[in-house]
């Protein structure tokens, strides 16, 4: 039983670590910049254009309100050439509402120096640290952004750098300038138009809200989940989970071998008893079933003990975290937090427990077959 319990503890803890890392990565991706869902004009995500703006925004906001989606922020997006003190660089200009953006992303938490945008800011911008370094600017310096407005007329404006972001993510630290959306709309003659809406949702609402939006919105719109836009993260998580399933199978083979050994020894120890039971009228099928049941009960007992201890471990490290900052110099770029807070997804827990039960049942097959082959007279002679 202790072997089963140890197996279950290690599996639950490893799943807890794995899920903790994965869920943090996916949450960070959504909360730092992408959001859970983005709504754009059809085709905007694949081919962004200042001209492809979101239509009927008030009705859209009303619909989101009816769906109890509270965390919504507008964005306007354009491409520009940024000129700094030393050089120039092409980048994406992202217009955000400083107040509403805080409800959907945590960009402000990634500030390395300076401050975040405020409501009253006008020609202010936040740059990623790589872009700032390339342009040779820092907080308080000025850059010039050169782009086209809505009518393809060249537009240039001087912006003061008020903050530098150091997120560890290349897509944010390089090639991105964040400016106030109202100033951007005025600068590029956009009126009240926006490129899209960013929504932030709890994970359990993601699919339902996406389905409802796709049902309600017509062909003019595209509703994209975070992993529709950035599938690599989800694919990477699924690949890693695949490796864990292989590991799970190996541990289960060890657990099954442990159970099979215990059940077989117990069976060999009771051959005389089984002979008596057969003589009394117990059928071979019933005896074999009894062996399987014993094995499953052994599995259940080990599983229950292992599950309690494993969940306690996951819960403790979920609260206190495992600090891997010394080992995470390179991977910290991939939205991984240096302190891993373990947590286990319900489906992974259930798959693990189900697999242990199945392993316990399968482990009993050989001992059960041996019991079913016993001859009562010979078995009763066995001492």
């Amino acid at each position: 039983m202790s072997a089963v319990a140890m197996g279950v503890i290690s599996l639950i803890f490893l799943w807890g670590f794995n899920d903790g890392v994965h869920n943090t990565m996916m949450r960070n991706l959504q909360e730092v910049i992408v959001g859970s869902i983005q709504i754009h004009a059809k085709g905007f995500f694949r081919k962004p254009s200042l001209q492809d703006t979101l239509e009927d925004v008030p009705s859209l906001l009303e619909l989101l309100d009816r769906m109890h989606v509270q965390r919504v922020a507008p964005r306007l997006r354009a491409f520009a050439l940024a000129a700094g003190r030393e050089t120039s660089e092409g980048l994406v200009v992202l217009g955000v509402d400083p107040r509403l953006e805080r409800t959907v992303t945590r960009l402000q938490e990634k500030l390395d120096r300076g401050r975040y945008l405020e409501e009253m800011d006008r020609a202010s911008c936040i740059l990623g640290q790589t872009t700032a370094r390339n342009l040779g600017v820092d907080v308080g310096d000025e850059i010039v952004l050169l782009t086209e407005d809505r009518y393809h007329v060249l537009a240039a404006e001087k912006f003061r750098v008020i903050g530098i972001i150091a997120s560890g993510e290349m897509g944010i630290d390089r090639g991105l300038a964040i400016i106030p959306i109202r100033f951007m709309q005025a600068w590029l003659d956009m009126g009240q138009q926006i490129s899209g809406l960013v929504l932030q949702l709890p994970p359990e609402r993601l699919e339902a809200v996406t389905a409802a939006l796709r049902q309600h919105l017509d062909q003019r719109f595209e509703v994209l989940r975070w992993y529709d836009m950035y599938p690599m993260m989800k694919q990477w998580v699924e690949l890693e989970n695949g490796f864990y399933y292989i590991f799970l199978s190996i541990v289960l083979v060890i657990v099954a071998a442990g159970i099979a050994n215990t059940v077989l020894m117990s069976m060999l120890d009771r051959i005389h008893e089984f002979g008596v039971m057969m003589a009394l009228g117990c059928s071979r099928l019933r005896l074999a079933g009894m062996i399987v049941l014993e094995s499953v009960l052994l599995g259940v007992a080990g599983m229950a003990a292992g599950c309690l201890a494993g969940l306690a471990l996951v819960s403790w490290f979920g609260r206190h975290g495992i600090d891997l900052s010394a080992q995470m110099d390179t991977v910290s770029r991939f939205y991984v937090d240096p302190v891993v807070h373990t947590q286990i997804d319900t489906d992974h827990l259930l798959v693990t427990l189900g697999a242990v039960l199945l392993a316990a049942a399968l482990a009993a097959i050989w001992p059960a077959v041996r019991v079913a082959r016993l001859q009562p007279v010979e078995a009763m002679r066995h001492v």
Partner: protein
Amino acid sequence: MAIIHAHRLRKTYPSGSTHVVALDDVSFDVQQGDFVVIAGRSGSGKTTLLNMLGALDRPDSGTLKVAGQDLLSMGEAERANFRLWHIGFVFQAYNLIRVLTARENVAYVLQLQGKPSRERLKAADAWLAEVGLEGMGDRRPDQMSGGQQQRVAVARALAMSPSLVLADEPTANLDTHTGGELIRLMRRINEKNGTTFVIASHDPAVIDAAHTLIVMQDGRIEQSVCRD
């Protein structure tokens, strides 16, 4: 009415390159309610014959009907079911299940028969009382004497309301006094309930109690006596 009809039973066992004849041309009938003792020296074929009658083993040839059923035509599952509903066994070494109490040992066969829990425990207590073990139902085999354990085995054999009780050397592990008590108990139940007993033994006290005595030697029936 014959509860056992055995005709020309033969059984051999391989022994190295030869075969040992355990039963040779054994034929006899046992009437319902009889108290039969099969006597003979060790190796005379008593236990082999008892195993045939209890559907634990098969003869190589011959005809064997017990309680109106042809045992030779039955498959393994049918034979197990036949033992469950028709045969009560009492073994030389008691063969109680050591992790169960006396009550649970008796109730076990009733559980196999599918009787409800309350009914089988009540019946187990009644049979333990019948064999003189009232109030000892909670004891495990290792907390009982040999005589007491064999009484539990008798209660277990009788609890299932068998057509036939087969006992293999039931007094062999008991002292003379306890063995005598046990055989008187079996005789009393035979007379009271009309249960048929077939006992393999070379104990003179058991042989004295026989209504029908079958004497075996070298796998053959040497003598069959009915004491009316």
